């Protein structure tokens, strides 16, 4: 009922029906009137003809073999009549047309005086009417039959006319929450141009303000880096100078490291944000990259007596080394942090039918199933801040992993590892065509 299309179709069709039908009725009425006059003049001609016929008194009953009956009166005496006419007067002896019921029918009558005779003729009004109506109805029929067709065409045209609107609605509703790309403006309909311009203006302002927010966070983080570095150096010097080897200073050190970490992560997070990021992608070997990163980070695993193993052969995906390094680094340090002393870590890269699969498994405590989705939220840490590992962390690492995975159109899942305990992160990347491989 609130649909524009229903309104247009119903209102237009109602108006068209009203006008068509009323004018058809007008046409019907005037045609019927004309027909009536035609029949009347025909009746008059007949009466005049009869008046001119020399009637023979010995044959007062004349078989006309017609729908018309007549009587000829002279001095109130019926001197002749057609075979169908009654013997009583069928009309008053007054000149002119009239109606009269006799013989079980209604008749159109005409009295005509030609001295010394009164000629009265009569024609069955129902037959006259039927004849005229048959003709008129046939002329009306095309209009009536055409109406449903017209209705269908109106419906088609309205549907067609509203199509740009439906298209726009579909485009708007199919937009992802974070898709701030402007709407295509090549839709030529002038009524929609304003809506599109306004919507695009809105999107632009929204994107600008989001950009400012990112810029602010990124700038702030960047600005914080230098003072934190100096702070660390100062702390280091202080630890050298002051002989106090108590816990306090070590604690300050830990907190400062944590602060540095947060700032680094915020920077990484916002650097990976731009939507047109994918444009700079090239084909690169994920395995090679992963192996390099493992080699770089080996010391941190060694420090905790953890064994780290890599499996897999060369697999190419589209991407850039900076973001992939951040991703792999975050996954590895996550495993490193939450796997206890002497634990095991397995990194594997394999080729599925439609994906390159990167899997990082550990033998740590694992993640409860109800927390599988939450681990990717910003600043979320399993078990809250009192994490058993006592490791410094801000809960941004996996959020960044997720963000980068999204940028790559890759899916990420948390599951159980192949060890007795622990969890496994599985990333599925779209493979790059190996033939169109670019040098890294």
């Amino acid at each position, binding site marked *: *009922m609130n649909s524009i299309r229903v309104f247009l179709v119903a*209102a237009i069709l109602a108006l068209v029906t009203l006008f068509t039908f009323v004018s058809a009725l007008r046409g019907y009425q005037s045609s019927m009137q004309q027909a009536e006059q035609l029949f009347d003049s025909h009746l008059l001609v007949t009466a005049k003809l009869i008046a001119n016929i020399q009637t023979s008194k010995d044959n007062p009953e004349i078989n006309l073999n017609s729908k018309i009956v007549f009587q000829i009166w002279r001095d109130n005496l019926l001197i002749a009549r057609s075979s169908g006419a009654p013997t009583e007067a069928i009309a008053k002896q007054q000149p002119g047309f009239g109606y009269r019921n006799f013989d079980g029918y209604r008749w159109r009558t005409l009295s005509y005086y030609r001295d010394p005779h009164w000629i009265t003729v009569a024609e069955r009004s129902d037959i006259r009417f039927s004849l005229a109506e048959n003709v008129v109805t046939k002329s009306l029929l095309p209009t009536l039959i055409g109406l449903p067709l017209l209705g269908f065409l109106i419906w088609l045209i309205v549907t067609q006319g509203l199509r740009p609107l439906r298209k726009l609605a579909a485009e708007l509703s199919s937009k992802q929450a974070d898709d701030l790309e402007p709407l295509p403006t090549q839709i030529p309909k002038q009524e929609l141009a304003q809506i599109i311009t306004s919507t695009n203006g809105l999107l632009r302002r929204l994107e600008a303000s989001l950009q400012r927010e990112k810029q602010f966070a990124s700038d702030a983080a960047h600005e914080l880096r230098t003072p934190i570095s100096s702070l660390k150096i100062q702390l280091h010097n202080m630890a050298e100078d002051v002989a106090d080897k108590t816990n306090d200073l070590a604690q300050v050190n830990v907190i400062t490291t944590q602060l540095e970490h947060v700032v680094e992560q915020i920077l990484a997070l916002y650097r990976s944000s731009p939507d047109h990021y994918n444009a700079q992608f090239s084909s690169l070997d994920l395995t090679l990259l992963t192996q390099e990163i493992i080699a770089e980070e080996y010391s941190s695993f060694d420090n905790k007596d953890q064994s780290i193993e890599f499996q897999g052969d060369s697999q190419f995906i589209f991407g850039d080394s900076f973001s992939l390094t951040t991703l792999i680094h975050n996954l590895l340090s996550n495993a490193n942090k939450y796997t206890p002393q002497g634990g095991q870590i397995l990194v594997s890269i394999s080729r599925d039918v439609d994906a390159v699969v990167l899997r990082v498994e550990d033998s740590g405590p694992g993640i409860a199933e109800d927390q599988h989705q939450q681990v990717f939220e910003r600043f979320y840490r399993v078990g809250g801040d009192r994490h058993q590992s006592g490791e410094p962390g801000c809960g941004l690492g996996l959020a960044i992993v997720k963000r980068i995975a999204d940028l790559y159109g890759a899916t990420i899942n948390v599951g159980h590892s192949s060890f007795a305990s622990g969890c496994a992160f599985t990333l599925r990347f779209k493979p790059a065509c190996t033939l169109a491989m670019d040098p890294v």
Partner: protein
Amino acid sequence: MLLNSVILILQETLEAALLIGVLLAISAHLHSSLRWLWYGLSLGAIIAFFCAINMSTLSAWFDYAGQEVLNAIMQSMICVFIIVLVWLISSVRPLPTAASHAYGNRFAQLCCLIIMLAVIREGQEIMLYLSGFLGNVEHVQKVFIGSGIGFGIGASVGILLFYGLLALPTAWQKPAMLTLLALFAGNMLAQSAVQLTQVDWIAQTAPLWDSSAWLAEDSMLGELLYALIGYESRPTAAQMLSYVSGISLVWLAALGGTYYAKQQNLNGHSADSITSGACVK
């Protein structure tokens, strides 16, 4: 036969179509569901069918006054239901969802009853008329074409009234709808007076005036005005009196409903403040 069918079907359809148009517009105004329309139409059609096939029995009731008395009862009932409906519409105020659901139900039931009664009255005549031509080879085509035209004009006017009402500025919509309902109620009561006069339950008096020379009842405009505001070129005192009382009753219902809503609102507020006071304690 064609023109005659048009006029006959149009007379019967127009009244129901206008009534449905107004009720639909009110429904749209209140965002109510439209199921009542189908229930009303189909129930009315079924009852009309049984009335039509038993017409001669029904007519013989009350010493051959059966048809008129039944019509008068149905018309008065439509008038009463319209009055209740107007009360309901006027007494609407911001209600909690559960109550507004009940309110919507009551509204739908009333609309359903009104439409049903209108369709019974108009439907039985249409059915009787068409049944007379079913076996008539000569006329049946023209009668059905004519009926189609009549129905088309009636339905079109109803649809245009519906959209016309909704196209009005929001502030005018409710007054316009209530005015039309008042005219309908007056019209119905006046028609019931005519029915009772016809069987001499109300004494026939001389017409108050004769405006048939200005606007004949059998003209197109006359038919439309008859259906819309109950135009009659030769009304009797009984007709005028019932017409005016129908309109006045609807008007009173609207006033009463508005007053009641205000009172309820005041009471509701004081009740709220009492309960919240209790909560604070």
